[in-house]
C-alpha cells in the first residue's frame, strides 16, 4: 500500500523507514495519476523491503522544496531518512523495479 503523507507525518514515517520511496505528485498531473497504480503494484511486491509513500506537492510545498522537486511525478528514494536517488516522470513497472533494486 502507498501511504499518503503530509509534512508532519513525514518525519515519523518516511524518515525512519530503512528504505522509503516517496512519490511527489499533484492532482493536476496526468502522468502522476498513471503512475499511482504502478506504485501500488510495486508496493505489494516490495512489501517486505520498501515503504511507499505519496506526497501532494500542493498540500506539502515545504517538502517539495526541501527535495527540490521541479517536475512531477518525482520519486525520491530514502535510506534511513537519507536521500539516495530520484526518478523523474512516469516509468514502466519493470524499470522502476530495476531502479529500486539498484539502490537497495
Amino acid at each position, binding site marked *: 500500500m502507498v501511504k499518503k503523507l503530509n509534512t508532519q507525518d513525514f518525519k515519523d514515517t518516511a524518515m525512519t523507514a530503512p528504505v522509503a520511496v516517496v512519490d511527489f505528485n499533484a492532482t493536476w498531473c496526468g502522468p502522476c495519476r498513471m503512475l499511482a497504480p504502478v506504485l501500488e503494484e510495486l508496493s505489494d511486491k516490495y512489501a517486505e523491503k520498501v515503504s511507499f509513500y505519496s506526497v501532494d506537492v500542493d498540500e506539502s510545498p515545504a517538502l517539495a522544496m526541501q527535495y527540490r522537486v*521541479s*517536475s512531477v511525478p518525482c520519486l525520491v528514494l530514502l535510506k534511513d531518512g537519507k536521500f539516495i536517488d530520484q526518478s523523474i516522470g512516469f*516509468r514502466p513497472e519493470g524499470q522502476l523495479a530495476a531502479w529500486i533494486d539498484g539502490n537497495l
Partner: protein
Amino acid sequence: MERYDIAIIGTGPAGVSAALTARNRNKSILLLGSREMSEKVVKAHEIRNYPGLPFVKGEEMAAAFRDQLDRMGIAVTEKRVGAVYAMGDYFALQTGEEMQEAKTVILATGVVQAKTLPGEEALLGRGVSYCATCDAPLYRGRTAAVIGYSPREEAEAAFLSEVCAKVMYFPMYREEPDLPSGVEVIRETPAEILKGDAGMTVKTAEGTYSADGVFVLREAVAPAQLVPGLETDGAHVAVNRRMETNLPGVFACGDLTGTPYQYVKAAGEGNVAAISAAAYIDRTEKGGNKNG
C-alpha cells in the same frame, strides 16, 4: 471503456499498412492520425518505386490509402497523442483530456527532427520542462523562461503568466507573438541551458537570462517522451526484426525505426509490426503472462 487490441499512432504508409494487416487478423483497431494521411506523403512529388502504384503522385497515394482504409471499414481518429503509458497488461494513451486503452501499441509517427539545445536533455525534470500545463504550479510566484518553437505554444506561455511572477518568452519563429502584456518577449536565440546554485540560465549570443524554470515547447515530441521508458537510438526507436521495442507490447515501424526513409520499407515494417502485435495478443491471452 473499450480496450482496443491495437492502437496505431500515425497514418503514413507504416501506420496504414499496420491497420490493414491488423484488420485482416480480426483485431480491433484504434488508428490515430489524420484523414489527410501523412503530410510527407501528400507533399511527395512523384514516387516511382512503390509496387502497384507506378509514378504515383503523393496526393494520389494519400487518396489511395484513404480509399483502402474506407473499403476495409477502418476509421481514422483525428487526435494527437500526448503520451503512452505502460500500465502492466495494457497501455493508456492520452489524447488531449481523454484517455484511450489498448492491449498493444504500434508507433508509426514518422521521424521527428527535433534538435535539442545543449543542456536541455540533461536538465529535463531538473529545471527544464516540456509541459507548462503540467509543471506550471511548481513555479508559482517564480520566474519562468519559455522557448516556444511555434505560435501554438503561446497559449502555454499565457497560462504560465497567470501563475508565475515573471515570464520571459523566446519565440523561435518569425511571427509576432500575441501574448499578455506581462510576458517579456525576447527576440534572441537560446544557445544553451545551464543550471547553477541559484537556478537556471538561458544563454543567448547576446546575453544570459536567469529563471527558476525553463520550458521548452515544440510540436514534435521525441519518441522517448511520447512513450516513457522506450529505448531509442538517436532520433529513432530501437527495434528488432519483428519490430518489437524494449517495451513488451509496443512496436514501431516506418521512418521512426531508421533509414532508409522509403515508403515501401515503411509499409513492409507496418505489416510486420501488426503481425507481431497480433501474435503478442494471442500469446498473452493464451498464457496469461502479464509481464510478457
